[in-house]
Structure formats: C-alpha cells, structure tokens
C-alpha cells in the first residue's frame, strides 16, 4: 500500500514542479517526473514478492507458474517509455526554439498569449 502512496506523492511532486516553476526546462523535468511516477505505478501493479521471469518451459512445476510476475505491465511500461521519449524530444526541441526567439527560459517573459 505504501508504494502506491509513494507513486501518488511522486506524481504530485511532478505536478507541483510543472505548475510552480517558471523556468520551462524545470517544467519539462516536472513532466518527466510525472511520467516516471506512472511507469513505476504500472510496474508495481505487476510486481510479486519473490516473483520470477514469466518464461514457460516444458514440464514446469505449477508452483513456478504461480510465481510468475505479470509480463503485460512491463510491456506497457516499455511502450510508455518510448512514447515518453518522443514527447520529451519534441518538448526539448521546442524549448530550444523558444530560447532562440526570446533569449530566456522564463515562461513569464515568453508568455504573450492570454489563454
């Protein structure tokens, strides 16, 4: 239970970083932290104490089968990491272009649009 709680704490920390920081690089870091929190959460869902890798071999004892960790969440996390990398590179690219335009990373200086 504590680990799930820690995931939420990590998620909230990322969200705080995103909302409170004016520097857009720090905002990006906030997004990355939130991403990691969710990946961690997914891994914990499939985790088992004393679990083994889910590889089926012939004549396996039933006790081993029961100790398998859930492979699906690990596949989800792999996909999620790849997506996160794509989004991160786009964010950093835009961040560099914004810096070239304004000469600063401060969102309150950059911000002209009213929302």
């Amino acid at each position, binding site marked *: 239970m504590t680990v799930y709680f820690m995931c939420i704490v990590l998620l909230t920390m990322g969200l705080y970083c995103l909302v409170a920081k004016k520097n857009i690089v720090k905002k990006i870091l906030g997004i990355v932290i939130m991403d990691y929190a969710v990946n961690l959460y*997914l891994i914990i869902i499939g985790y088992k104490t004393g679990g083994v890798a889910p590889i089926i071999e012939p004549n396996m004892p039933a006790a081993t089968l029961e100790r398998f960790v859930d492979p*699906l969440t690990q596949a989800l996390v792999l996909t999620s990491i790849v*997506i996160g990398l794509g989004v991160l590179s786009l964010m950093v690219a835009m961040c560099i272009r*914004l810096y070239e335009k304004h000469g600063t990373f401060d969102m309150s200086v950059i911000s*002209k649009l009213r929302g």
Partner: protein
Amino acid sequence: MNPLPLYVAIPLGAAFLIPLLGIWWRKSGETLAPLFTLVLAIMAVLQVTRPAAVYHMGGWAPPVGIALVSDGLSTLLLIAINVVGFLCILFSLKYMQTYTGLTKYYSLFMLMVAGMNGVVVSGDLFNLYVFLEVASIASYALVAFGVGAEELEAGFKYLILGSVASVMLLFGIGTVYAVTGSLNMADVAREIAMRFGGEMNPALLLAGAFFLMGFGLKAALVPFHAWLPDAHPSAPAPISAMLSGVVIKSLGIYAICRIFFNVYGIATGSAGSIIFANAMVTFALLSIIVGGLLAIGQWDYKRLLAYSSIGQIGYVMLGIGVGARVLATGGQLSVAGLAILGGLFHMFNHVAFKSLLFLSSGAIQHATGTRDMKQLGGLREKMPITSFTTNMAALSIAGVPPFSGFWSKLVILIATIKAGYTGIAIVAIIFAFVTLVYYIKVQREILYGTVSKLVEKAREVPALMYVPLIILAIACVGLGLLYPVVGPRVLEPARDALMNSAEYIQLVLG
C-alpha cells in the same frame, strides 16, 4: 475482407513514405497526401454500408489479443475524420505554399489522421492510449509548424497540458487493469458488470476521474480548456480546421462516450455512474457559458472561432451528459436516446461548420493578410464565394433554421426539457442567442460594412481553396434538411452503440 486495419495502415504508411520519397521528389507530399486521403474518405463513407465488425490483430482473439472494432459510433467518427482530412489536404495544397518543409507537414498530417483513426477503431484501452499519443504528438508539432514566437509558445503550452492529460490517462488505464485484470474494453466492461454488479469500487471511481480529466483536457471542456484558444488560432488554417473539427471530438468526446457508456456501463444506475453523469453535465454547462461569454469579446477572428468551439463542444457534451444522467437515474430510455442523438448530431454538424469556418478564416487571411476583425470589412464584394460559405456556416452554428445547427440544438433542448432539467435548458437557450450575437458580429465586421483598406486589394482565392469550402457549405445545409437520409444510416446506429453496452460486449467477445 475487413478494411479496419487499413484505416490505420494507409495513413501510417503514407506518413513514412512521404518524407522518404521527399528526399528525391520535392512534391511527394502534394501528390501522395491527396490520393491517400481520398481513398480513406471513400472507404469511410462506404463503411456505412458495412455491418459492425471486429478485426483480431495478428489472429489473436480478444481478450488476449488486440481487437479493432467498428460499430455505429466508430463509423460516425471515421466519416468525419477522413472526409474533413481530405478536404483540409485539398485546401493545404495552395494555402501551405508559403511555408517551407512541406513534406514534413504532410507526413505529420497523415500521422495525425492515423492516430485519430486508430483511436476510434481501437477496442483496447492501452492501444487507444498509444494511438491518442500518436495523434497528439503530431498535432503538437503541427500547431508549432510556423515556428514563430506565438506558434511555438502555443505549441509548447498545448504540449505541456497534453502531456499531463496523457499521464492521467495512463494512470487511469493502469488502475483499471489492476482492478479488472484486462485491457480489452469489452472484457473490462463484462468484468465490471459481472464482478461488481455494475457498482464501481473506489479504484474504478478514481480511474474514471482520471479518464474524465484526461479526455476532458483533450476535448477542451471548460476547467481544462486553457490551451485551446492559443493552440487553435496559432496553427495553420487547415490544421486549425482539423483540430477544432475532428481532433477534439475523436480524442475527447468519442473517448469519453466509449469509456463511460460502453466500458463503465453508465446505464446500471450505480452511485458512481450518477457522479460521472453529473460531472459531464456540469462541465458541459460551464463550457457553454465560458466559451460563449469569452467569444463575444474577441477581435481576432480565429480566436473567436476557438472560443466558439469550446461553447459548441459544451452543447455536444450537454446532450450526451443529459442522456447519461437519464440512463443512470433510470429515466425513460426514449428521452435518453433523444439526448444522446442530439449530442451526436450536434457533434457531426460541428465537424462540418467549424472546419468550414476555420478554412474560410484561412482563405480570408490568405487574401488579406490579417485576421484582425477591426481591419476587415465589406468582404462580400471582393470575395463572394468565401463570404457566401462563411455566411452559411455562421447561420448554421448560430442555430438559424433551416440550417443543420438549428435542428441539433433543438433536439438537445427538447431532450433536456423532457428529462426535467428546465433550468439547464433555459441557460442553454440563452447561450444559443449569445452564439447568434457573436456570429452577427462576424458577419457585420467581416462580410458586410464598409470596404477596408486591406480588403480593397483582396481577390477571391483559387479554386483549390474554395472547392472544399463549397463542399462543406453544402454539408451544413444538407445535414439539416436531409436528416431522414443521414440519420437512420449514420447517427442512429451511433446512438444505439452507446445505449446498448451489452451489445458491444457481445460484438467483441462473441
């Protein structure tokens, strides 16, 4: 043969081919993109004649394998996405000539279409998330395509908020998987119905809140709308038309409908489903009020259209939310059906008139070089075709009979009153007049009045740009008057797909 995987495969392949061929062939995007999108549009329209179908990816049957599902609701969205996509590509051919890096533009455009088609045919929660990310990443890049200071800022804002939505969605999907042990939507729905008797445990409630927030952000419902009025005006006009026309609907409204009606089974009348139905109606009302009030004060034409999108999405959500609430509280099925039908009908109409308005704003910007309404005026004499189509769309969205927007708003209002929410209906009627007010402002400032200095030199746009406008203008009138033709074939199957979640489970799991 089942064409479902082609809706994803064709645009995805095109998105890969266009930049690859673009190395040697500069016009690869301009040549290939219209061809591929035309094929997709024809396929999507023909999808109406096909019965609901399931495709098993790689031959693995659900719930183990990933399923692609087309039912009434998917078909409705497929038609909207692919037809509008084709028209926007046609419009882009001339409009985008002032930009550089066109192969990248067409490639990103095709990626966006692939992602949206994937979202609406996917029958698997995580698969839906992946396609949603594909469409979102392409649209972040397209919003910032102009790489001006304003475009980059709008794109960055959209990117940050979109990423937060994605994180929330993944959290929700993980929670649903932890509770039900499945990611297949039909299987999850069956688990929720059988194991919990339709009642939602706290974990499912939390996941539902994350879904409503994540998809609500993609749909720009009001507490989550801050990115839309920046992102939509900053994008090139055909992309604005795609974003306001179909992206917010396929990534937002469609996903909310699918999750809450088909997966969560809102009709069971559990305490949780009433909470979600209430939230939907609240967000809808807030969107109608905030979108309407903020649109009046805008002088940037595209920004006005963007705020109007928020308001109109509110009407769509109101129809669907009222339907959900009637279902959840065990009211009359016919009233719920009418409300949902009204919401879907308004969504379909909004696809036609809002993409038309954004494309015509692009035509006006192309001809005059500005989108500031104070500098425009008297366009009727200089650009008769664009003015005529703008007029049609404005009358339609403002709800003037006999245009399509009038009928769909009327259906939503009748259903709201029949369901007993007279107060909500009165607010909706008042803000229907507000819509009329700001479109009268559009007409007065842009189309009529004295010819301004910038408009003096304006000429009608080339045929490639006004043909999509005319087609969409015909749709604006046709969808209303030809409802007896369109309704039973496209809209009513979509409503039935939402109303009978048992049928969806039956369809996918057999």
